[in-house]
Structure formats: C-alpha cells, structure tokens
C-alpha cells in the first residue's frame, strides 16, 4: 500500500441525538483537531445525522489484535449465566 500523504488520520464519532452514544462513523484526514472537526462535520453530518462530534487521532486508539481474539473473547461464549435473562423485569423498565 502506498504511503498516506494526506495529513494525519483521525477517527470520527457521531452522536445522532442529544443524550445518545457517540458511534464510530469513519475517519478523516486533517492536520489538527479543528480541521478534523470541520472535515468530520462536512463528511458525516451533511444529511442531518449529527448533534455532536468527537474526533480522536487514530494513533491514540489502542486496539486489540487478531492474535488476542481467542484469549479475549472465546471464554465468554459459554457463560450464559452472565446474561441477565433470569430476572423478572420491573414493569415499565424498557432498557436494562
């Protein structure tokens, strides 16, 4: 792959509605945080998708690696008792 010559890479997180989660939307190129915010605004919110934006330099993200996958995630596959499905939900509680 050829080297990326278009400034630094930033990850973009968009919050659709006030109070909701910021969800990863994609990435943008930018030389600083201000430019990253504006580029994210222009690319990911132009059809009214957003109410707030976070941008984070991509190299600040610490990610799990493929070789860790088994060690990290397989042990939780058969722990059915960790799912809160054995409780009776209080009436009116929609999200637990």
């Amino acid at each position, binding site marked *: 792959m050829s080297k990326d010559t*278009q400034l630094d890479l930033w990850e973009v997180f968009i919050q659709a509605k006030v109070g909701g989660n910021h969800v990863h939307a994609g990435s943008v190129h930018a*030389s600083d945080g*201000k*430019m990253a915010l504006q*580029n994210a605004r*222009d*690319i990911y919110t132009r059809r009214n998708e957003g109410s707030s934006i976070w941008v984070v330099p991509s190299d600040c993200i610490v990610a799990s690696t493929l070789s860790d996958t088994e060690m990290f995630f397989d042990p939780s596959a058969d722990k059915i008792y960790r799912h809160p499905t054995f409780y009776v939900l209080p009436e009116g509680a929609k999200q637990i």
Partner: protein
Amino acid sequence: MTRQDALFNYVLKLGDQSLVYGHRMSEWCSKAPMLEEDLALTNIALDYIGRARAFLSYAAELEGKSRSEDDLAYKRGEREFYNNLMVELPIGDFAFTMARQFLLSSYEYFLFTGLAQSKDEKLAAIANKVIKEVRYHWTHSRDWLMRLGLGTSVSHEKLQRAIDELWIYTDELFETGPEDQLLKSAGIVFNMDEIKTVWTELVHSILKEIDITIPETTFSQTGSRLGIHTEHLGHLLAEMQYLVRAYPEARW
C-alpha cells in the same frame, strides 16, 4: 421607482450574488487538494445555491409578473445580472478561493446580521437562516487563512498574491444606489457605511495576525449595479444556462 420595485431589485441582487458564487464554487468539485476539502467546498457551493433559490423565488414573488425562480436564474443575460464582480472571478488556486471566501463571508456576516432585523419579514427570515451557514463558512475560511498565512513561504506568498488580486473588488461590495435609500428609510436595509467600517476592522485584524499586507491602492473596480461585468460572467452563464436554453422544455 416604487418601494416594491426597489425591494425586487435588492432581493434579485442578493439572489444573483448567491447563484453566481455558488456556481463558481461548484467548479471545485473533484479538484480540491484532498477529498475532505472537496466535500467542504461543494457543501459551501450548495449552501449558496440553496440561498439563491430562497432569494430568487422571493424576487419572483415580489415582481409579480409570473416569472419563476428558474426563469430568473436561466433566462436572463449577462447585462441583467447584478452580482458583485468579486464573486464571478474564476476560482483561481486554493489560496485565492479561501481568501475570497473569507472576505465574502466577513461581509455577509455583517450584512445578514443587519438584514435579520429588517422590517421586511420575509427578508429577515431568510437572513436569519443564512447567518448560520455564513458563520461556518467564515470559520472554515478563517482557519485556512491562518494555516496558509502562517504556513510555508510558498503558502504565504500565494495568499498575499490572492489578497493583492482581490482587493480592488472589495469596495464594490458596499456600494449603494438611490433606490437603496427608499429601502433604508423604510427600515428594510441598513447603512452600508457602518457595515464597511466593521468589515474593514475585522479583515485588517485577521490579515495583520498572519502578516499579510493590504494593498495601498485606492483604485476599485465597479459596474455590477449597472449590469456591467468582467469578461468571466458570460462564460459562467453560458455553461450554467446552456441546457435550459437549448432544451427549454427539459425536465429531470
């Protein structure tokens, strides 16, 4: 001239300004230095096209001669357009584009802040909506001016050249004619001298911060109030109006 005619002319001029500049900016599509900026510039272009629709449809309504916004946009010749000369100039390089955007957005910020208080309710409503876009365009172009002005010697030189080329077109933004007096006394438009004062102050302070010199020339280009334009507008209109003129009944 009645006040209604004067208002029609004024709103038409605002529409022409947005339409011609929006078309000009759309020429950046697929040509910007990077993908992100390509979208930013075409977003700006679309903001202006949207604004042109608002002003031209209001102008059509004021005229009351059953011409539509499309008739006004596509079926008038060069001499019947009243946009300022600055907005019809070719896109130039990126520094030129950003310098023009900054000068223009600074002007629009004060202009539309004033018009948001207009006694004409519809004009005030459009201005109120537009001002949000203008603030974004201003911020975007101001940030680029900072980067170019304080960047390398090449970027600084390109920005200086852009300001040198644009400066003779700035005065025309503030010109008024006798018909504007009618609107001013009715509280529909406001004093352009005051807008020029705050604009000058703002532009000077930003350019000083990035060590860009303002040309000393006192000469300024003029003509748009009479429909007299640079050689560039005709070419722009030829491209913009070609389809409608060649196929008048075309629908898409």
